[in-house]
């Protein structure tokens, strides 16, 4: 396929919703990259629905535009129809976070440029470790998972359970799905607090959206000084909680990865393929099914990670300079697919 002229390209970033801080950050990153590259951008809001996601992406394709698409798929099964549609329209797509296991970019041709994610297992492991350490390697914890059928949530929970093997005295009492939602995080935590009372020493969540509700529930129960939290994503509100040493350092562990980085890396990968700067079929497999570095954050090393949020433009410059696979703090670390422990 011929490279597409830069002025014909449209960047498209598809996000699950517009109100989750991670998604907001993705939009921010997409906008910043679009400005840097001077290529127009469209945002697709899936409103949490696969149907909506696919139809909106198709609507953009329908206008005959040549897209460089980054899509944070709502569910794994969304990837094939999106890839097929993009392929048919002659665009390029990079998928973030979810795809079917056997649906590999190299089997689909150049238009499916790459699949990218941060390791879920690693995320679960590092937050589990931080949480277990913070309660002195001994005690009871509960876990809040995401939507039941989400692979992201499942890998993180698998990581949590794996890491806990090293802590025989830490007991995982219960795992409840809270659908990534703060309100459900609140309710489920309240139920768990009622069920286990003062037994709970730590709360783990698959994502910071839910930890916001969990923290609120624990505060209401007056136990914020007794319970530790660990979760994934280091959302801005959680940074504040860590910085303020809320509950005497209640937030024990986090992971660092950024929506704006994910969106920009994904978009930029597609963009490079669209302009012909990379030829996907010539890339090694780990660059087409990639796991990016995920940093474990504890209150001690928090400061190392907050610097990026203030300088998104600067980071974009580095990205464009170094390329999608080699930009700190999220360089490519290995190829997928992710293996469950």
């Amino acid at each position, binding site marked *: 396929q011929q490279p597409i002229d830069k002025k014909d390209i449209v960047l498209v970033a598809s996000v699950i919703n517009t109100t989750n801080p991670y998604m907001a950050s993705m939009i921010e990153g997409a906008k910043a990259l679009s400005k840097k590259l001077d290529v127009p951008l469209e945002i697709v809001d899936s409103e949490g629905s696969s149907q909506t996601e696919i139809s909106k992406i198709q609507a953009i394709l329908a206008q005959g535009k040549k897209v460089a698409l980054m899509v944070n798929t709502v569910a794994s099964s969304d990837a094939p129809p999106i890839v097929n549609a993009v392929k048919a329209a002659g665009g390029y797509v990079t998928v973030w976070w979810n795809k079917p296991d056997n649906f590999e970019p190299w089997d689909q041709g150049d238009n499916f440029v790459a699949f990218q994610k941060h390791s879920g297992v690693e995320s679960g492991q590092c937050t589990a470790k931080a949480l277990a350490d913070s309660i002195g390697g001994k005690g009871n914890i509960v876990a809040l998972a995401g939507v039941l059928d989400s692979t992201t949530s499942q890998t993180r929970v698998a990581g949590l359970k794996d890491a806990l093997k090293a802590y025989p005295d830490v007991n995982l009492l219960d795992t409840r799905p809270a659908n990534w939602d703060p309100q459900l995080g609140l309710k489920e935590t*309240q139920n768990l607090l009622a069920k286990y009372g003062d037994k709970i020493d730590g709360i783990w969540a698959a994502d910071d959206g839910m930890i916001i509700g969990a923290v609120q529930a624990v505060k209401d129960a007056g136990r914020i000084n007794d319970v530790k939290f660990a979760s994934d994503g280091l959302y801005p509100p959680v940074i504040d909680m860590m910085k303020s040493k809320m509950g005497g350092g209640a937030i024990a562990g986090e992971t660092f990865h950024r929506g704006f980085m994910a969106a920009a890396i994904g978009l930029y990968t597609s963009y490079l393929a669209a302009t012909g700067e990379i030829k996907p079929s010539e890339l090694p497999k780990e660059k087409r099914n990639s796991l990016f570095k995920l940093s474990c954050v504890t209150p001690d090393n928090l400061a190392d990670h907050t610097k990026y949020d203030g300088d998104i433009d600067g980071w974009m410059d580095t990205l464009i300079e170094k390329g999608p696979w080699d930009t700190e703090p999220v360089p490519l670390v290995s190829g997928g697919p992710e293996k469950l422990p």
Partner: protein
Amino acid sequence: MTDKDTGAGLLEAPAPSQPPHRTRRRFDAKNLGEVLALVGLIAVFAALNPTTFLTPENVRTILDHSSIPLIVGVGATLVILTGSIDLSVEGVMGAAGMTFVLMTANSRGSTDFGPWAIVAGIAVGVALGLMSGLIHTRLRVPSFIVTLGVWFVGLGIATVLFGDRAIPFLPDGGIKGWPSTLTFGLPNSFLLAAVFILAGIFVTRFTRLGRFAYAIGDSEEISQGNGIPVQRYKVYVFVVAGACSGAAGVLASLELGAGSATVGVGTLFVTIAAVVIGGTSLGGGKGGILRTAIGVLMLTVLNNGLILSGVSPNIQTAVSGTVLIVAVLVASWPHRSRLRIVK
């Protein structure tokens, strides 16, 4: 054929004389059925979880969790009594909640209007309820579809208000802690819900609004013929429902301590299921707010009890679904007949 005999042959003979005074039935056994089911559920879970279920802590959790569906249930019951339905609950809660959060002191630092923020939140509910009511009555679009649309409209307003900036948090202290603070040993959120329920019962027994809701649900045409301004009262009912959803949105935001467009998530199905389980007929005209309250408590107890009993989340919806079906089946079994029409 004309009747040539005069007088004597008019129709049938006099009916056997009736008992002089038939008193109205205030309480029928069916009411007790739902209460018994609730007691039964409590007994089962108390037996399964002797150390955790009936603790004050857990009872408070249950009451706290029931508060939002209870408040929404007051409006939903009124609407359903008129024979309409209000699906817009979650959207209205989102819009009202976001409005409230952004108008009170919050981490985004927008202007703080103090208590007016609560008023504004409820006003958004009222406005959306008014919109539903007016479109439903003026354009004569079925309430099902109007409120489905308004659900999305509310969600859209909430999303626009949320924008793409950081989550607005409520500051610690202040009113954020109010819902979970205890008064007389009960969470304020539940006490507020109780006030709504009592007010709702009062409205349905003693005011035109409530009585006319029943009348309209029985038959709109007859109500119209009896001079009830049907369309106007339907609008009122939707406004009340909007206000209830608005208040629930404000309460939910207070509980969460942050603004969220999806603050109402899951409320609609719980509420409607509670109305149905309570025995209010979706056809309108039959039922009541107390019944809905019992239905809400049943569902909240069920949900909480299942979690306490360690039922796998994968099958939890199946258990709730089965209980819903069994509850309705048991409630309607005595009324089965070959002529009964059930929609």
